[in-house]
């Protein structure tokens, strides 16, 4: 946001300086029009499939089969009731399970990774640089690599079919750590920690009551990312969770794919996908300003 403002400001400056040398004539106008047309086409490409999803989620099975439509139908409520009362795919459980897992993941990863970043940022101890570089290094290693060991470990320890292996590992989230470290560098002066010490605040209390509130914007952005990543996560949960009412949303979507597709009520199928996708889209559009700013600052996702 501040960047946009800066851009506008500099562009205004540039404009006054450059304009005399160049013609802001029809060439520029055409160029601008081409840009807008291409950008609009790609924006439509991004929205098109989701628009069709919303339309089809409101239509009835035979209506969907009979052809393509750009206009919503009237069976939204009916599809919703059918989908949520489907016994083979307990989607209500799916949503609740996913919400529990994703919320806890977001809270744990943000809190503990911020704590670790704080340790590296504020304190001076042996091995600090080594640990920092090491965390940067493990950030690039995909989690799937250790999945075999993870899976067998969970089996040995009786953690299969439990949410512990889905939630607890989030405490060590290298990308959140890195983002928080960057943020602290720019907006957490050590003097504040120093001042708190003089006032007699313990280290732990300083972190919880003084530092964390100062990090709120960064914490919020990272919490959103952690939440969404966990909500969308399919690989590990599909290996760990077996019982049908414990499954998270992505596993249920996969189940939908494996089921004999032609027998399904298509209105319900689109409704399942709708339930998996649209809440995230709505939350995204409400918070997009912060998210976009977070993407360009952090630079590192995934």
């Amino acid at each position, binding site marked *: 946001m501040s960047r946009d403002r800066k851009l506008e400001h*500099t562009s205004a400056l540039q*404009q006054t300086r*450059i304009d005399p040398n160049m013609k802001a004539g029809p060439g520029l106008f055409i160029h601008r029009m081409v840009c807008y047309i291409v950008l609009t086409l790609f924006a439509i490409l991004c929205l098109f499939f989701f628009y069709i999803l919303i339309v089809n989620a409101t239509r009835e099975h035979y209506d969907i089969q009979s052809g393509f439509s750009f206009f919503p139908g009237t069976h939204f409520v009916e599809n919703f009731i059918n989908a949520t009362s489907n016994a083979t795919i307990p989607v209500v459980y799916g949503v609740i399970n996913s919400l529990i897992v994703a919320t806890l993941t977001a809270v744990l990863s943000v809190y503990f990774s911020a704590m670790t970043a704080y340790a590296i940022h504020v304190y001076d101890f042996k091995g600090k640089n080594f*640990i920092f570089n090491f965390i940067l290094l493990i950030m690039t290693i995909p989690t799937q690599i250790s*999945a075999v060991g993870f899976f067998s470990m969970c089996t040995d320890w009786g953690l299969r079919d439990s949410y512990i292996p889905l939630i607890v590992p989030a405490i060590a989230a290298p990308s959140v750590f890195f983002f928080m470290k960057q943020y602290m560098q720019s907006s957490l002066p050590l003097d504040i920690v120093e001042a708190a010490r003089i006032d007699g605040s313990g280290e732990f209390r300083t972190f919880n009551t003084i530092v964390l509130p100062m990090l709120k914007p960064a914490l919020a952005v990272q919490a959103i990312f952690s939440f969404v990543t966990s909500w969308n996560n399919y690989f590990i949960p599909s290996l760990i969770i077996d019982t049908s009412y414990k499954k998270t949303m992505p596993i249920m979507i996969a189940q939908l794919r494996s089921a004999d597709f032609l027998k399904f009520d298509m209105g319900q199928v689109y409704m399942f996908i709708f339930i998996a996708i649209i809440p995230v889209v709505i939350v995204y559009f409400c918070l997009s300003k912060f998210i976009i700013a977070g993407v360009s600052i952090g*630079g590192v996702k995934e």
Partner: protein
Amino acid sequence: MADITVNNTGPVVAKAKKGKIGKYKKWGYIFMIPFVVVFLIFQAWPLIQTFYYSIFDYFWSQGQLKFIGPEFCGFDNFVALFTGNVSIWALTYNTMIMWVLGFVPQIIISLLFAYWFTNIRLRLKCLGFFKTVMYMPNLIMASAFSMLIFSLFSDIGPVNNIITSITGGEPFRFLSYTGSTMGLVAMMNFIMWFGNTTILLMAAMMGINESVIEAAEIDGANSSQIFWKITLPLIRPILVYVMITSLIGGLQMFDVPQILTDGMGGPNNSTKTLIMYLNQHIAAKNYGMAGALSVLIFVICAVLSFIVYYFFASDRDQKKLKKRG
């Protein structure tokens, strides 16, 4: 600008205050305990086990309903990966082709859009709207998106409805041909990632000092010269970063082809990716083979990561030198 280089002001500040901070040293360790412990248990230990399994004959026998092994077998698992009926070369080839098909259009479009968005002469409006809409697909559930595309492009789906109503003939079976299946996967990857790449490249382009571009303009450079000779070389680090992270992401490709082809990687294993194969082995409790496959993927990723790390380290050193000189 998306600053992903390791910041080097931290230790300097800390050193200046060392006298005061020294006695709080132990808190540094205490605050790191949860992270380190969880990392060791849930990431490091499984990784070690994975490596361990890779050189053992260790699998679940469906017939005898028990585990066979673990029995040391050297590099037999690796040999089996290269010579088995689904060879690792074919899997790597599938994965890479699908990555390239998605990445090439992605980087071209993202460069173009980032250039437009940051171009001071164009002064486009509604940037916020375009950025928001284009980034949106990145956050949606890949498996659900894949399921949606499957529903739309299935034999009885709306796309085939249009095809049959125009040609009046048979529906086009998208998932029966390697080309069209790969095309769908690449299209989904493109839609999901080009917004993210655009924002990263945009941040990089905004970090360019305006006076450099101004100077070029005064010297009479036209806009394509400025783009190729100034903008592109200056954002090279971010460009390489985007490319390597995308490549590592591409090697991990799983959700989209898994759901689209129902885990079969059809037709004829031609769209089966490395991680899909890994998933199959883990689900079958084929620990030895899964371990060997993980080790190979790990090696590839490690090499790529070192390239990134080395690249940024050298870039930082150059900056330091310039500052000194």
